[in-house]
């Protein structure tokens, strides 16, 4: 009960602003950047936008797809793949990016605190 209730949700954009199989970035008030992805099957995921391998805030601009059925995004810089649901890097088991909960309400995408 407690965790859900304390989570703050921020409305980010209309659902149509996130194309299928693509991503966008959102800027939170605290300066954090969230990459929001929408899979072909309309699942939404949030990851930190920061690419841990280059230090550039660009993960939202990666290519979305799957590796053995697991939904992933490939960094646009050096192409490492990150699992959308967990943030785990498939190409380096020591690396993971932060995940953010995403929910759709009233046709609007919301990002929650991690």
């Amino acid at each position, binding site marked *: 009960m407690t965790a859900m209730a304390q989570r703050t949700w921020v409305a980010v954009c209309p659902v149509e602003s996130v*194309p299928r199989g693509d991503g966008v970035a959102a800027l939170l008030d605290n300066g954090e950047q969230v990459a929001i992805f929408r899979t072909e099957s309309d699942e939404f995921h949030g990851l930190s936008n920061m690419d841990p391998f280059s*230090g550039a805030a660009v993960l939202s*601009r*990666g290519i979305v*797809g*799957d590796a053995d059925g697991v939904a992933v995004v490939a960094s*646009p810089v050096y192409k490492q793949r990150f699992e959308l649901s967990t943030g785990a890097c498939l190409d380096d088991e020591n*690396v993971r990016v932060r995940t953010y909960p995403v929910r759709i309400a009233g046709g609007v995408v919301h990002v929650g605190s991690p």
Partner: protein
Amino acid sequence: MSRTLVVAGHGMVAHRLVEAIRSEDAEGTWRIVVFGEERRPAYDRVGLTSYVDGWDAGALALPGADYSGDEAVELRLGDPVTGVDREARRVVTAGGHSERYDALVLATGSRPFVPPVPGHDLPGCFVYRTIEDLDAIHAAVERARGGRGRPAAAVVGGGLLGLEAAKALRDMGLSPHVVEMAPRLMPLQVDEGGGALLRRLVTALGVTVHTGTSTDAIEADRGKLCAKLGNGTELDVDLVVFSAGVRPRDDLARQCGLEVAERGGVLVDSSCRTSDPHVYAIGECAAIEGRVYGLVAPGYTMAEVAAARLLGRDATFPGADTSTKLKLMGVDVASFGDAHAATEGALEVVFNDAVNGSYKKLVVSDDSATLLGGVLVGDAGDYNLLRPLVGNPLPADPATILAPAGGGGAVGIEALPEEAQICSCNAVTKGAITWAITDEGCDSVPAVKACTRAGTSCGSCVPMLGRLLSACGVEQSKALCEHFTVSRAELFEIVRATRISTFSELIARHGKGSGCAICKPAVASILATLGNGHILNGEQAALQDTNDHYLANLQRNGTYSVVPRIPGGEITPDKLIVIGEVAREFGLYAKITGGQRIDLFGATVEQLPRIWRRLVDAGFESGHAYGKALRTVKSCVGSTWCRYGVQDSVGLAIELELRYRGLRSPHKLKSAVSGCARECAEARGKDFGVIATDNGWNLYVGGNGGTMPRHADLLVSDVDTETLIRIIDRFLMFYVRTADRLQRTAPWIEELDGGLGHLREVIVEDSLGICAELEAAMARHVEEYADEWKGVLEDPEKLARFTSFVNAPGVPDPTISFRTEREQPVPVLLPVPEVVGR
């Protein structure tokens, strides 16, 4: 105590001998002293002609040939052996060195034979055997370039070496004339029918052939040379190269009274021993059982035999296969076994396809059951399968084997016996390779090479290694990625045939899953080539790599660079000023690129459309620096200004750049045009490069800088602009359709079955009948081209994507910042954050 082995000569064969002894002589029973006349360690003489692509002697080096770190071997270069005292068992050298031996191996090779015609020793006359010979020829060619007109050369001798020399000269930009005494080229290897076709093919490549005539004299004539032929022809040339055969270097043997063969060569028995049991001879200087071999493979076998004997083992020379296959200027020539049907009762079966330029002859036993030999000219694709069958029963009727449709199909690799030699350079049998695959677990061509040595010399057997892997059930997957089992080329054909225009439909019908960073951009590129409108239209945007998605190149700090097109590198002062103003206004770092244009770095996503607006208004367009597409057509200044230029290279470069701009391809495409043979635009380093000639243009294809540099090969010469463009249209479209993902034209041509010869057949001679279609596809591309930047500026929906944050349009990424270096902005890099250990 170890004994001393002296080796006279350090060529390929001597090196093999030293390697063979050192790999088995762990106890060090032999101390080896090698004297070499040349100043460098043994190198790949067989590959000598490739030296002209880049003049890099290092590329011919043989691994380990300097024996550094091996104390048992002393290599003394530039110090030839000048005398042998067999009584005292001692050699003396030109440098005054004297060395006692327990065994002596002569490996002095052979010297080029120069017919004693008057004038044969004039300056400008050369032979073709060593790196130094080629350097001397190169220097003479450079001098000849100073004059007007295209320099020319006469090559005396139309055998294997003569044709190689002609190729090297042609690659250096000369017009070569080949003079051959026999009525046909390569008289030793091919028969009359094959010779006739060879002549036709070689002539088409710009080599003039004079057969059935002697060279009577060389005369000096106003700074040039005149070669007077027996048939009355006089050739005005800048240089003459003699390649009229070789003679074994048996002088040392003669001097010290060893027996020599009647026609030259140190006489040795089948154990490589001379008439003196302490002296051996191997390689081209040896007449083994009276016969001299001018090929490296028998030399290697002799080296192994001598090494075994020296180590106290028994070994005898089993005889040698003098089969040859070569690719000369893209023309395949092969002869094997009893090519001239000398066997009693032998029958010849000939298939002569004049239209497609292919001549094939099989020599079979009188009952047609056994293969004895053969000649292949134009298309030697079956050589690797036929040669090992010599002496074995034919798997099918000879006519079926030769028919084009039957071809390699009729003689499968399965038909070869286990003992058939697949790699003749290194004497590796099918059995040995199969064992490496099945028992040693080699699962790729490089693994088989490392394990068996097959394919590591001339490389002609490499395709067979691939086929043996497949025959053993080792899949060499061509699948694009885990989502598509087909190759890129197959996928291209599927999209073309089905006219599917979306990724989702394509993957649903021909793939699985939801795609990835490999297949999505590959499909996006295929769709773009086939004309699918703007690359950011609808669903296509999500397929694009970030560079194509933002029509700019991503940099390490998340900003982008902007490269406007500057066709041919030609730019007006006004346009230059606009670029400067844009850079100043948006705070961009400016740099002249290696592609003769200007790159502006450090633009944020929101700045991009505003920068393009300025540039487009000033008459610029996208330079596709971000795309797997045509990049630049570089140009030298050409005949308009340059005192040596023979054509307007800038004009042609601009025409080509505007024609092919925007063409999406498997990898980026680069081109250049040079106004004369000095080649200031470096056209031979490009995917397609054009060099002006007095009569038109020479087109070179398959060049590459980058990681694996390769010089482009001449495809057609002296063509007019219209023909040139037609052939480039075909070349590009054929490449775009058939190459693998991220495969530049250089590896594509190298991996093309039949290589450059096949490419020429398809796009010059139209052997597949597809040229009209390729041209039509290019015409469509030219017709439909539109500037991609403008396409974004005119479409509000696309424009809306150019923002860093979906919830804060116009706000730039706050993590981006710059500092100043050499008066320009450069990125401040962030520490790598957010890595959460598991």
